[in-house]
């Protein structure tokens, strides 16, 4: 009888630890997903503010930079894609391309002197630059939270819980292939 009691106590402790571990792993997963989603929501707010500027910016620029019509059209397309995207990966790709194109628009001021003299353009340029800075900061926070979430999902033994439930890898803001190319310098 003593043996049965001993075995029952030992099994109880091992079983309790197993159950607590499964519950803790699931709660950790929920917590990390919540942090990543909050970080994404923070990025999303600023990204939306940036898209709100776009119609005004396009209208201002359109009259001066006739040769850049294709860029403006592409930005309009990207806006539609980004605001209607169901998938976060698709959204991130659209946002990253938009960031690159908007960076070009900001430097048009140097190419088109009439544009540089336009007060409205200068105001939009400053606002856009501020927003880009905020986006960069929040993007880093999102990348950190998403990386933590992704790493936790892949570590053993949490991988068992992550694989069994809803957990999926969160996409990151990464440099576009064209941004990774080393610029050629000629003297």
């Amino acid at each position: 009888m003593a043996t049965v009691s001993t075995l029952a106590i030992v099994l109880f402790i091992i079983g309790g630890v197993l159950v607590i571990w499964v519950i803790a792993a699931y709660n950790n997963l929920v917590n990390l997903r919540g942090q990543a989603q909050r970080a994404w929501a923070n990025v999303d707010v600023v990204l939306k503010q940036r898209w709100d500027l776009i119609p005004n910016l396009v209208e201002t620029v359109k009259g001066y930079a006739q040769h850049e019509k294709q860029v403006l059209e592409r930005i309009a397309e990207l806006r539609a894609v980004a605001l209607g995207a169901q998938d976060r990966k698709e959204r991130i790709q659209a946002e990253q391309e938009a960031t690159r194109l908007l960076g070009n628009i900001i430097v048009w001021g140097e190419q088109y002197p009439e544009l540089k003299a336009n007060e409205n353009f200068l105001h939009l340029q400053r606002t856009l630059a501020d927003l880009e800075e905020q986006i960069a900061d929040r993007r880093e926070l999102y990348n950190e939270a998403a990386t933590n979430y992704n790493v936790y999902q892949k570590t053993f033994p949490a991988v068992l819980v992550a694989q069994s439930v809803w957990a999926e890898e969160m996409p990151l803001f990464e440099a576009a292939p064209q941004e990774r190319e080393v610029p050629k310098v000629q003297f």
Partner: protein
Amino acid sequence: MRAILPIALLVTTLCAATIWAQQSARTSPAWKQQFLRARQVWDKGETDRALAVLEKAYALAPDNLARAQIAFRYADWSHQLGRYTTARRWYERCLALAPPGSDLIRRAREGLHSLPVAPPQPAIPPFTTVPPPAGKANLLTPTATAFLVLLFGLLLTLQWASDWKREAFFAQVILSILFAGGIAMMLPLGMLLATQQLYPQPDSWIAGVLTLGSIACIAFAARSWQQGQLLRNTPLTRLRSASHGFLKARGIAEPAFGVITSQVGDIPGIYISELSERYVRRTEQYYDSQSKRWKTRTVYRWETIYSSAQGVDFVLDDGTGKAVVEVNGAEFYPDHLALFYNYRPVRSFPWFASVGDVRTRVHFIPPNATVTVWARYYEHDLPGTTRDEMRLQYDRFHKCMVVLEGQESKVYTTRTGAGLALAIIGLVMLLGVMFILLNPGVVTDYIEGY
């Protein structure tokens, strides 16, 4: 694939342990061990304890032949002790259990005939069928049923719950086994409690404590090893190009928020760990097991009179940028050591001490020392400006922040050493649990003997 390998290893280890336990039990059954131990105890002259051990062996005996052997031994010893009534009862029990024609029947009859004539005893119920050891058969079926019900219930929930992964069947099976197995393993104790069949003895408590300790040690060892790997694999980052997250940075520790000084020697530093001890004479009581009496003795020892460890926030300058290091939660590895004996600086402590002497050790990181920091990097908006302030703080995700002065190998060695030591302690505890399970009553007997 990465997940499958550890699982396969775990399952193989569990199977091997089970087979080993079964083999051990087969070659040296518990009842036999108790039976042999009873002889040793009897030879020591502890007759009552020997009979108690025999009773344990009787409860564990798997068949009637074993029970008959034990009953004969019990009767024989009771006979020698002059307890004729008990001896008669056990001789009769032996006769009822022994297989027909065996030598035990002849010897038990001889024993019965040699007993002095006693007044008539009440009839003893025949021992033709002996109930199996209580507990095992009663617990196995409901536990197994509960396990299967839980397993399939959880598996179905995981398969059909909305927006959960239906294709991850393999992972869901393993998770269900772990969870359902965990709950099923907790059930026998609950059932024993409910049926009032739980008899916790020192064996049970010690085994429980050892199991908990073993799990804790192995968990901490795994965490220590994991952190060691994290620290080792984190590359050195320049602060100028750092991004949010865990990193390693190396630079000068500038005391931008002041320094702290040690109590002894007034040593300034961004981190001070101080320990002062006094050599004292104490009279203490102790229990002498030889004479079984309490006695007094005089002992000399070092007693702590003051100890503290504190750090202060500082600025890390690695040449490309500066970051404020928030040391709350940080683990420090200083490289400087100052020794004081009777509040005077010394190179080493003397071999011999007098009562009242005070020795002090001060570990510290001086201002402007070169330090390596593993921490979470983040940028903090400075209010009223467009500038960001770079900061390093305790990483809550990795549960880690280290400030090191000197060689990096110190951190890795500490982590590896601690992990290895904890793993060994955990495994020894686990072996202890298995030993107690395979030798029932071993702790109780040891305590009783002591």
